[in-house]
């Protein structure tokens, strides 16, 4: 009798040791320590909200809508009313049941004027949300939207517990009480934020017991930390950093085509960028293919023409944006800068290749008589102190569907309208595109919006990136999918999966 008991205990101990692994992920400290656990806050703690909260609909491995807290959805023929059937038996980390009331609360608070969330421009199409029964909600839109489920895949449209948040639609809710695979233990954005597995998670039980989010602002430091075994993955490394890991059995290198981009932003309301000819001249001075090769290496990019819609998106419009130095000079001359233009560009090591991109554009723009002075800025706190504060600065965005990104970054007055783009015609066309039920016509309208951004917009988006992700070979369960499609609960370490 003793032997089986000992054997059972030994197996239990071994099992316990195997599952007590801690997954360690770096975070970029982009808001300098003021990261918020409210997913719709402008300063949302990206890595934390990805693991603590859940959405109604999330990306499948192919990027298409896949059930999460909503098991199914359907629309009326005019695509103005969307009904979502919710997953039963789901609880929040504090034990409260997840119901349709929570969905109504979570969706309607995105409209708050007080919070002024970056999601307001995208979700502003919601008129109201009806609670049909505890497991069913009907979202009524102000206008038709054939792709509405795509909007609910936004990484910030997470479902919060209305009770924990006090039911206040205008207040930030930073409790960290979600339905995700990990629950918050200790929030320390400047240091290490710790989480533990949520045992009542409705999906696959998390493969590791603990999760740590470690603040490392500098890209080289993140790579060094991965090499030293202090963290388990780096979301994206530069082309020249790949040889540090390639062929090393201790690491797995993944190449992931994505809609991510690192770009430069001109504030369209501030001189000299308030003149569209100046903006176009700067864009025309760039040799995008050479820039891509220099910054991201061969195969590390796909050329784009200053609009945010990537090649994998069904609404992508291909535009010819070859380099035209003479054309750029002519535009500058027309704009009153015949003798050349001197501008300052604020850059930081915020995203892979941002500083190098600025340096390459600086070199290329010289040929058109544009002298760019680079002003280095610290990476920690960049998003609060520099981004959208200066007239010309670096930026970085993760992949988003066409409708979402066009509404989130270019609709007049929205929180993350980084180019201060303000065009009633553009807004009207955005409304027309998202409410058009015919796919061909909708695609044409989205295409026209992209052309307009190339002609007159304030973004410089020379390429979209093929992300190179590196993870420790101790990690498994992470296929080469785009960041928003990662299912953190499926990650295991040292065979710790249960």
């Amino acid at each position: 009798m003793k032997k089986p008991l000992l054997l059972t205990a030994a197996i239990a101990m071994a099992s316990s040791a195997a599952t007590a692994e801690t997954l360690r992920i770096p975070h970029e400290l982009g808001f300098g320590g003021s990261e918020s656990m409210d997913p719709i806050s402008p300063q949302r703690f990206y890595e934390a909200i990805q693991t603590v909260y859940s959405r109604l609909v999330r990306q499948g491995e192919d990027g298409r809508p896949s059930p999460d807290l909503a098991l199914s959805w359907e629309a009326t023929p005019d695509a103005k009313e969307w009904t979502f059937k919710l997953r039963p038996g789901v609880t929040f980390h504090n034990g409260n049941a997840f119901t349709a009331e929570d969905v109504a609360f979570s969706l309607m608070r995105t409209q708050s004027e007080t919070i002024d969330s970056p999601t307001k421009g995208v979700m502003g199409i919601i008129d109201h949300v009806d609670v049909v029964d505890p497991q069913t909600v009907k979202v009524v839109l102000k206008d038709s939207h054939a792709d509405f489920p795509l909007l609910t895949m936004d990484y910030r449209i997470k479902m919060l517990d209305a009770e924990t948040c006090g039911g206040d639609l205008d207040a930030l809710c930073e409790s960290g009480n979600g339905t995700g695979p990990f629950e918050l233990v200790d929030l320390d954005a400047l240091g290490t934020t710790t989480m533990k597995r949520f045992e009542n998670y409705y999906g696959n039980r998390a493969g590791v017991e603990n999760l740590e989010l470690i603040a490392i602002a500098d890209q080289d430091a993140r790579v060094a930390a991965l090499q030293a075994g202090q963290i388990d993955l780096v979301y994206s490394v530069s082309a020249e950093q790949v040889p540090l890991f390639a062929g090393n059995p201790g690491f797995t290198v993944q190449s992931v085509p994505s809609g991510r981009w690192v770009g430069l932003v001109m504030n369209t309301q501030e001189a000299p960028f308030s003149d569209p000819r100046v903006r176009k001249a700067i864009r025309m001075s760039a040799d995008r293919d050479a820039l891509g090769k220099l910054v991201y290496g061969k195969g590390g990019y796909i050329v784009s023409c200053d609009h945010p819609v990537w090649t994998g998106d069904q609404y992508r419009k291909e535009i010819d944006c070859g380099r035209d130095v003479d054309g750029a000079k002519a535009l500058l001359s027309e704009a009153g800068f015949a003798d050349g233009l001197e501008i300052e560009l604020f850059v930081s090591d915020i995203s892979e290749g941002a500083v190098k991109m600025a340096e390459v554009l600086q070199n290329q723009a010289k040929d058109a008589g544009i002298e760019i002075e680079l002003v280095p800025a610290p990476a920690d706190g960049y998003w609060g102190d520099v981004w959208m504060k200066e007239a010309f600065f670096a930026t970085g965005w993760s992949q988003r569907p066409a409708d979402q990104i066009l509404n989130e970054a270019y609709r007049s007055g929205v929180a993350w309208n980084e180019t201060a783009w303000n065009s009633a015609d553009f807004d009207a066309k955005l409304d027309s595109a998202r409410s058009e039920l015919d796919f061909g016509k909708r695609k044409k309208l989205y295409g026209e919006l992209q052309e307009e951004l190339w002609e007159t917009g304030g973004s410089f988006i020379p390429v979209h990136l093929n992300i190179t992700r590196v993870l420790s070979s101790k990690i498994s369960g992470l296929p080469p999918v785009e960041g928003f499609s990662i299912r953190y609960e499926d990650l295991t370490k040292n065979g710790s999966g249960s």
Partner: protein
Amino acid sequence: MRKLIATIASKPSGALGLGLTLFHLVLAVLAPWIAPFDPTVQNADAILLPPNATHWMGTDTLGRDVFSRVVHGGRLAIAVTFSAAVVATLWGGFAGIFFGTVGGRVDEYSMRIADAFLSMPWLLFLLLIISIGGAGPLTIIPTLGFFYGVAVLRVVRGAAMQISARDFVTAAKARGEALWPILTREMFPNLSDILLVEGAMRWSWMLLAFSSLSFLGFGATPPTPDWGLMVAQERGLLSTAPWGVFWPCVALSSLIIGINLLADAVGKALGLDRATAAAV
């Protein structure tokens, strides 16, 4: 002067210091004619090439010739730090001579203020001032000059106190000479050798400080070829493409070693012992 140079060159360490310093100065002046490539030209087809017949020190992450950038890399640093060293030596030296000569409460209070400055984390103050004033030479030269001038002041003041106790200074005071003639005719000629050595020493330290600033993004800005900036830009590739970091480090180290050896040799040639003269 010839005798001084001959004395310096007679010792191996002095000859090495003089040679290294002159080598770098000549390199900085003649860089445009020595460098085989434009140090700012990027080449997408020549990224991170190891040293070869065309690119003797290899290429960096933007395909630029590392040798050309190393040759140009000392120009800004040398110009800025030499200017700052002159500023530091002039104000620190004059203030040191003045306080060492007048003594009394003015000297006591001033030295406490100087001690307070010396106890401050100077790099943080530098970063603060440069953050406010910008990263250009017009901010960096006076800032470096001021902070390093405090150390010069402390050393020169100590030496000036010894000189001011000598008979010829006492005699000048007894003759009723004004303070200015005493400072310029009696004190300065007897402290000029210390000033020279101090200036050289502070210059080498400033080179390191300026390169540190560039490394941190507060000194030279892209695309300026600068040793500190080059190390910062290529530091993540030490294990795969070390040439981008190695050569600028060699250049910076050799110049600093050269100036230090030269300052030592000058001090010895002038009969100074740096170990006792340099109190800070």
